[in-house]
């Protein structure tokens, strides 16, 4: 059967705090846990996989090394026979990859999907800048080319742009439209229109949450999105009552059919520190990954693997349970 996931499992050996742990990735994954527990390391590992997968495969024998950090990946059907193993000289630099596959064509397919993988740590200051129209098809990892991406989207995919804009205005009804201006140096700047005769609000005067929401919408309404998207801190700057909408913006990526989209699902790995965001996943505990850190060692757990989950949900919301420590995934205190 053709699965909609790209990456099926990740196994870590001595990669930062991830000494010896594995994780099965679902189509949608919300990773929670204390700082330094491996949420970012997981995303870095995926980025390393993307980078190394695009180089020609080297000679295994020369590069095989023992004792250093290792990360291995398996992929979802029909590519489940492919195993990619990364070896790292240090925590920061994985420098070789070995692929085990009986089927070279399968690896090429996996490789082409991995090439599109993107990861994001959006930065509202960077997103407020005007941007040059070059290289504007994909949003940069900090969102710095937001204005140019919006302009390109409006030009190349006007229908998708219109839907993005309509969704933004539904979520933030104080605005009336996205205004894009090309400056004399050809850089693109955006502002948001407001009701009445007022001047549009220039990007630098918008609040942080507006940028993050706009960034997520640009990803979610991309007519040709990457196969895998990693996004850190998806709740940042957003009012807690709006988190259901943020969840839905991301669900649109992974479950396009539920949102009237006619494209392939995107595998999403997102992180949050918000208990209120966690509350939004009460009906889908299989989508929650908890990183546990004990001493210098961290490991992953799926919330749905907890046998006592129904009892826990009777006693409190998921967010409350997480904060209390019952779910784990809390900072250590001394």
């Amino acid at each position, binding site marked *: 059967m053709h699965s909609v996931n790209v990456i099926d499992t990740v196994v870590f050996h001595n990669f930062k705090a991830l000494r010896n742990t594995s994780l099965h990735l679902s189509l949608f994954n919300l990773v929670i846990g204390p700082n330094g527990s491996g949420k970012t390391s997981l995303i870095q590992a995926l980025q390393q996989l993307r980078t190394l997968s695009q180089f020609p495969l080297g000679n295994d024998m020369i590069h095989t090394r023992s004792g250093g950090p290792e990360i291995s990946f398996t992929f979802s059907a029909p590519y489940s026979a492919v195993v990619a193993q990364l070896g790292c000289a240090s925590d920061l630099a994985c420098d070789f990859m070995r692929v085990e596959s009986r089927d070279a064509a399968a690896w090429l397919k996996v490789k082409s999907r991995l090439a599109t993988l993107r990861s994001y740590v959006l930065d509202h200051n960077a997103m407020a800048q005007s941007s040059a129209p070059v290289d504007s098809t994909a949003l940069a990892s900090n969102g710095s080319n937001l204005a140019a991406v919006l302009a390109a989207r409006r030009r190349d995919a006007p229908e998708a742009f219109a839907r993005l804009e309509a969704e933004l205005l*539904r979520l933030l009804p104080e605005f009336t439209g996205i205004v894009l201006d090309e400056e004399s140096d050809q850089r693109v700047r955006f502002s948001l229109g407001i009701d009445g005769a007022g001047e549009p609000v220039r990007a630098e005067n918008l609040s942080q949450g507006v940028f993050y929401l706009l960034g997520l919408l640009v990803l979610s309404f991309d007519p040709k999105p990457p196969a895998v998207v990693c996004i850190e801190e998806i709740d940042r700057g957003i009012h807690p009552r709006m988190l*259901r909408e943020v969840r839905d913006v991301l*669900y*649109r990526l992974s479950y396009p059919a*539920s*949102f009237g989209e006619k494209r392939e699902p995107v595998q999403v790995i997102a992180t949050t520190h918000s208990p209120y965001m966690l509350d939004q996943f009460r*009906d*889908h505990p299989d989508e929650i990954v908890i990183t546990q850190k004990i001493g210098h060692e961290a490991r992953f757990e799926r919330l749905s693997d907890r046998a006592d989950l129904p009892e826990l949900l009777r006693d409190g*919301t998921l967010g409350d349970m997480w904060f209390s420590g019952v779910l784990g995934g809390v900072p250590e205190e001394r």
Partner: protein
Amino acid sequence: MKVALLSESPADEAVLRVLVDAILGEPAKITPAGFRARGWPNVLQVLPAVIRHLHFNTDVDTLVVTCDSDDSPVHTEAHEAPQYYHPHCRMCQLRAVFRQTSKRFPTAHGRLKIRRVVGVAVPALEAWLLCGRDSDVSEAAWINGQQAGRLPYTRAELKFRIYQTERPSLPHEIECALRETERHRSDLRRLEYDFPGFAALMKDLKSPAQT
């Protein structure tokens, strides 16, 4: 009547607005911003503060609270006996919070107490929405299932029947919920008969004010 709502989601609140108007037979003055709880037991936790706030800081006279029963024990006729209190029944628990919170309130804004209106949807609001459409969905069917140890449907199934997906967008959820609510707007009798947790809400809402 000036009504405030406390519910678990914007979709629940949209349905509640229609049902309150339908019960009263005329558009009530419902405060535009509803109070929101993050599911059970958060409803129970915020309710005292909402009651106090409404009593002392506003001229609202009625607070409508609804929640899903999930897999908790269902409020039955036996619970209505004087002095009876079931510690795990959500109807009993919410009513007790009203009672305890406003026990020693002085008169404020011309009323002694905020009118208590509590409804519990068994097992979830989607069951009310399916009432009269899917004949297998009723409070009795759920209670029979609980007793037999074989539930007739799950919350997730009820949601899927209405939204056709396990992950509806909020606008889709509200649109579907309001479409199903239309059936009840002109005739509430089926909902009242099949869902005592809704009938209790109706009865509370029609009760005389305590001045």
